[in-house]
């Protein structure tokens, strides 16, 4: 188990990335629902360090001036400067990441059509998307543990039913089934219900693969000599699961979680992108990105695509970590034979 030293950084990197997203959401400069009605579709605010006179200053933003000729075009009046400061308490007592001195406005990723700060909404949306992925993974893995252990331990007809059921699920084009199922359920629901429905559906469709994997590990462990020996000491199924089988499952579960979380996050994004996940005004990366599907928006309001950058980063990072974990968490081989 010398590889332990490597396992930690990989998992910690991933965890800290998600913690960062969730933590930052609490420290976002603006609330995800706060609308700056005078500044719809504003481009990312430029943070400057040189004033019009050419002198170096601490970072500041200029006063944003809506131009009179068209909505969504803005000018800057750099005679009025607002210094930018990090980690400042905001008006509501929260500690925010950064802000421009009031009444200055700082939209790092610009604003959407309702004048809401895209950066703050990206962070909040990331939390929603990540929470969906995490919860769906937890529920799916619980179902998988239940199914895999029942099938692997009991064998016979329970195994037959669970395994064939899982194979049937794996044979289905999951995304289409998911969309159809979600579309068949009520669409106009409160955000909490929509969230629960997404988590439920994703995990019900997603338990099959980990369940098959766990079943295999349970079956191979069940036939180990030491499990037979424990049965000889009168051990029942609960004892065998707790003492001999679960410890073998931990590694598989860890790697599966690392694989499933990003996968389910993508599924959530797809759902909300198509309007079947959590709905406005609650942000998720999917709902936020759905506005970019029109040429005009993608062309003129490119900053609305920022969540895609965060999503891509998350998925790439998770994929890398999952691959590392999968290699490292492989069950160690049985005691080495004598040479």
């Amino acid at each position, binding site marked *: 188990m010398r590889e332990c030293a490597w396992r930690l950084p990989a998992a910690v990197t991933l965890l800290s990335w998600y913690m960062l997203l969730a933590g930052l959401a609490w420290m976002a400069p603006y609330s995800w629902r706060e609308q700056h009605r005078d500044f719809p579709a504003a481009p990312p605010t430029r943070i400057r360090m040189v004033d019009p006179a050419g002198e170096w200053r601490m970072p500041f933003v200029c006063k944003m001036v809506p131009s009179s000729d068209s909505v969504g075009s803005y000018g800057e009046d750099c005679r009025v400067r607002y210094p930018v400061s990090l980690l400042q308490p905001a008006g509501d007592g929260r500690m925010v990441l950064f802000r421009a001195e009031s009444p200055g406005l700082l939209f790092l990723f610009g604003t959407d059509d309702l004048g809401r700060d895209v950066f703050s909404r990206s962070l909040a949306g990331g939390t929603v998307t990540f929470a969906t992925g995490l919860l769906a993974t937890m529920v799916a893995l619980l179902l998988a543990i239940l199914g895999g252990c029942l099938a692997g331990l009991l064998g016979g007809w329970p195994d037959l039913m669970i395994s064939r059921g899982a194979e049937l699920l794996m044979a289905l084009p999951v995304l289409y089934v998911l969309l159809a199922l979600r579309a068949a359920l009520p669409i106009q629901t409160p955000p909490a219900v929509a969230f629960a429905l997404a988590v439920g559906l994703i995990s019900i469709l997603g338990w099959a693969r980990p369940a098959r994997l766990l079943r295999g590990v349970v079956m191979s462990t069940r036939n180990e000599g030491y499990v*037979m020996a*424990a049965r000889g*000491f*009168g051990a029942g199924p609960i004892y065998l699961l707790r003492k001999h089988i679960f410890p073998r499952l931990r590694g598989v579960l860890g790697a599966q979680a690392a694989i499933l979380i990003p996968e389910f996050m993508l599924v959530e994004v797809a759902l909300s992108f198509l309007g079947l996940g959590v709905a406005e005004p609650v942000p998720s990366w999917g709902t936020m990105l759905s506005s970019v599907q029109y040429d005009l928006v993608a062309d003129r309001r490119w900053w609305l695509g920022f969540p895609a950058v965060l999503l891509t980063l998350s998925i790439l990072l998770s994929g890398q970590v999952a691959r590392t974990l999968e290699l490292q968490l492989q069950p160690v081989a049985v005691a080495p034979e004598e040479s």
Partner: protein
Amino acid sequence: MSEALLVARELAKRHRAACALGGVSLSIGAEESLAIVGESGCGKSTLLRCLAGLERPDTGSVVFEGVVVWRLRGEQRKRFCRGVQLVLQDAARALNPWWNGLALVREPMDLLRSDLSRQERDVVARRWLERVGLPASVTERLPGELSGGQRQRLLLARAMTLEPAVLLLDEPLAGLDPPIQRDILDLLQELRRDRPLATVLVTHSLGAAAHCAERIAVMRSGVIVELQSMDSFFSGPQHLYSQEILAGWQARQANFVPGPPIKSGGPTH
């Protein structure tokens, strides 16, 4: 022979198409020692697992103290497990590779001796480790860090913690060097001297059988073809197959040119 402790009646068992046991009857008396010999795949291990209640025979029954073993539940099942212990083949696989020696030896007591406190179980475990000749450092080690002989001793220790009346041993000498085999057999003899203990030893080796058993059963293709006292087996085996394996063994003994005696370093008695 005193009254029978463990009785097998007409045991038959099929593994898929292959016949593993074809009607085996056997009775093991208290403090008796029986050896079962036969070639690989003749059903010896299946017979032992049936006797230990780990496999259910298709027909026939195993009876311990007058009760059919497979039907035992709860306290009665525990009583049976404490009375009849199987030492599994392949010590490397019969020990959980992630558990240390102490946890491994304590496991049977954790399951079956709830009357003892954790400390008492630890004490008993350490006592048995010492009794089978293992150093105290084994308590901290994983099975992968032990030698084959040490693992076999560990298996014996964990079975003996329950102080069974019948000890079933499935090829305890497989994969061990001859001097170590000798040590294990001697240890078995000592354990038998210490307390009333019946042993059933499954082995390939007639030498080992002769060393530590009073009766011998010869198995072939799932049936016992000959069941004799050891002396009459060696003086005149009845069945053709028994004569064959005895002749083969004697031929190997004759061809073997003994070198100078090997100092094993282990306990010699």
